[in-house]
């Protein structure tokens, strides 16, 4: 019975993907259609909370859109820009009686709002993180917690991907089955990523990096590219080769095939995470740092996959 429940939950999460940004959202007025074909993004997401497998009955665990355990994500569009973001909350706050998912989810929600309001500079996703962080400090509710953050802005006009990454979440750009660009991971030391924090007064030992310390990059992007964005729950458990293999199975750029690929990747990562005998990327890193460790790393997993394609011609 338990397993049925678990499965029901997983199913529910998987279908909470994104409706693709269909052509009607970015139509050119008839007669004014530009000669160049517009680029657009089809995005789907999937994720698992660590607790949903290990401790299904944790009280207070409610389903919220775009929140997987202590991870949070968003997908938003403004004019010609598609913006995606993930954030991974630092679980240690649970020891202080603070819900670790609150900070990342508020952070992502605020980023989403800023994007929808057009309050951002596409060339500077770092500023989106920084502004969002400042807005959290403006909130009447004291929002305590820490989180990593990764944001990409895809400029469909100039066909460029601008990114900002703080911590160990990240993204890959896959072109023709190969990774052509990957984000830089930022760690203070093993298993301690860069992170944004708001600490309660009196607690001065909390690790807190400035939003500006995020690494940023701008790379050209082409129709046909696949952008995968995920929290460390994926990258720690699933080697890149396997991720590429799953991405290779995407047959067309419809939402359903993207969704099934993202579901497959997230589920594979979750299986690895709970396999005690598996030499995960995390275990390899641990060994490189002199720690004897085998198996996956149980963690929240959030994966977003976007396919870059041509906007459909609505007239035809």
């Amino acid at each position: 019975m338990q397993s049925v429940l678990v499965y029901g939950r997983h199913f529910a999460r998987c279908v909470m993907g994104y409706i693709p940004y269909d052509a009607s959202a970015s139509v050119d007025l008839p007669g004014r259609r530009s000669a160049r074909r517009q680029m657009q993004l089809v995005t789907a997401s999937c994720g698992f909370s660590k607790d949903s497998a290990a401790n299904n009955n944790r009280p207070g665990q409610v389903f919220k859109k775009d929140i997987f355990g202590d991870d949070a994500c968003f997908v938003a569009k403004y004019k010609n820009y598609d913006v995606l973001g993930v954030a991974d909350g630092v679980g240690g706050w649970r020891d202080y009686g603070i819900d670790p998912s609150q900070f990342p989810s508020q952070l992502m929600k605020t980023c989403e709002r800023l994007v929808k309001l057009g309050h951002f500079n596409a060339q500077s996703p770092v500023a989106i993180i920084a502004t969002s962080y400042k807005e959290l400090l403006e909130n009447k509710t004291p929002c305590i917690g820490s989180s990593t953050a990764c944001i990409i802005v895809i400029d469909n006009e100039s066909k460029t991907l601008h990114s900002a990454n703080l911590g160990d979440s990240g993204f890959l750009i896959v072109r023709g089955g190969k990774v052509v660009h990957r984000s830089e991971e930022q760690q203070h030391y093993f298993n301690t990523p860069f992170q944004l924090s708001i600490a309660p007064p009196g607690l001065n030992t909390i690790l807190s990096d400035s939003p500006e310390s995020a690494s940023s990059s701008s790379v050209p992007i082409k129709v046909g590219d696949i952008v995968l964005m995920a929290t460390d729950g994926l990258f720690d458990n699933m080697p890149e080769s396997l991720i590429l293999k799953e991405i290779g199975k995407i047959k067309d750029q419809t939402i359903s095939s993207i969704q099934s690929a993202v579901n497959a990747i997230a589920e594979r990562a979750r299986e690895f995470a709970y396999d005690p005998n598996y030499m995960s990327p995390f275990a390899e890193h641990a060994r490189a740092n002199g720690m004897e460790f085998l198996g996956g790393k149980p963690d929240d997993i959030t994966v977003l996959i976007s396919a870059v394609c041509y906007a459909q011609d609505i007239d035809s």
Partner: protein
Amino acid sequence: MGCCPSRICRPKTKMSTTVSQFAKEVLHFSSQYGTDGNVSYVVPNLAGPSTIYPSYGDMTAACVFRTYGPWWELAPSSQPEIGRNAKKPYLGQDFVDLWYAEKVYPTEVRIYETYHPGAVVQIFACEIHRDQAGQIVNNNVRWQLLWSGRPQVSLSDPRIFSPPLRKVRFASNLIRLVVHHQHLRYYTELDAVELVGTLQDDGTDLDAVYALRMQTLSIRSQDDLNVSPSMAIDNGCFDMLPGELIQLIFSDLELLDLCRAAPTCKLFKKHCYDKLQFVELDLQPYWHKVNENTLDGLAERCQHLQKLSLAWCGDWGSLSTESFSSFILECGAELRCLRLSACAFLTPNNISVIASKCPKLEELDLSSVRVKLDSDAFNPLTTLSNLTRLNLYRTRITETVVINIIRNSPKLEHLNLGAIQTIQSFDNVVAELVKCKYLLSLNLWRARSLTITGLGALSEGCKNLQEIDLGWCVQLRGTQFSSSFVSFVQSCRKLRKLFLTAVRSVSNNDMNAIAAYLPDLEQLDVLGTLSVSTDGVQRILESCPKMRFCDLSFCNSMSDMEIIVLRAAYPKVTIQRSFVTS
């Protein structure tokens, strides 16, 4: 913002096309809770489609004004009323101007109210012109009243407020909402404002009676009357009354009635034009009617003018900087009080005219005047040495200028430096304030650079302080915070109002100090503090018998149940507890 959906429907009848649209941009407003440039609790959130409705609660994405309820009027810093025996106080407390992309004849205004509704009291419309770059290129504006009503008692439900509108004569693209929130239990929050209207005048909506009324209500300079000789001699019973008595009767008239009475006869005109009838002049209630002719017409009557309020007046080209300057040149010599809140027309030149022609000025309100005035514009104000009350809320004044003004105004009693973002170090400003021995109230709302050094300086001087607003002074923190706060309350024992909104470091230790040293405390705000618990608050409620107001919203270490118990135990105190819904 290209995201405003405008749905266009074409009914089959001959009626003209109806357009529904959300505001494209917020152009002007009088006050807000949040910080300029941010997106939390700011008035510009009113632009764009509804994002909160039908949720109900205290949301960051809403439009929130700076005050609510009676609490600000009950505080020591409350502005005294001015004007002619003000019997009917003006209802408007805040306003917001919303610009719409499509010009329409309004048929419906739908206001999405998502927290403590009932504040909107007036809706006006007008047409403004903008050039390609978005600059406003008006040189005059005609406001038309769409609706006006009493403030409503707040129900705790979200609603779309859509009052019946008067028909109007020309298409509009600017809507002004005037709100009154003194009767509300907490901040009113608005989500969006939808404007529905027709693209063409359907021909039947010319309300002649209303148009006529608008005309008669306008304040104009009165031409000399052509009264026939026989009428001029005989004023009936009024001739038997002593002049002083007529003067007294007329002093009870409202400004507009006084203007209307003037054309009756020469006797009335003499009394209505008497300069002593124009010692105090509050034009804020008539902001939509005040134009250059108004000031020209009033100038000759205002030679003894001592108090003037032009708050909210002169927007969108209805007053020119020249006409204001010439009015001040003519009538400024005796001015003691000048209120110019949200007067967007003011230029640096106006400020120097005020500074040089109004030597007796004691009270000056320049709140929310931002458009044309930057750092150096305020420099001439340093020559005013009689100031007792100065309001610089949301201006763009700089540290050096503020310090110079304070240096030259030793008599300052009330100073509002709230939400000024251009001051680099509030500590330096506060250090200068220590010399103002008479300071009664100090508003440092959102003084982001104020640290415990500044708080320390305050406790050395300013011992007569009755009111201080330290809300959102986020740099008031650190291990030394509590000790400097305790020494602050130890030296400022006359405090009646203390706002520590979102000063997250405030703890029970500070609550104990308040309970011990502030016997006169009436208002306390500790919203969003993490470690203040019921014990601390209870101690204050017990030892401060004059307590009337206490905001404990988002104090996470107190449960809702504890708040209910506190409310029951201290029924005289209004204990606030705001909430967010997801």
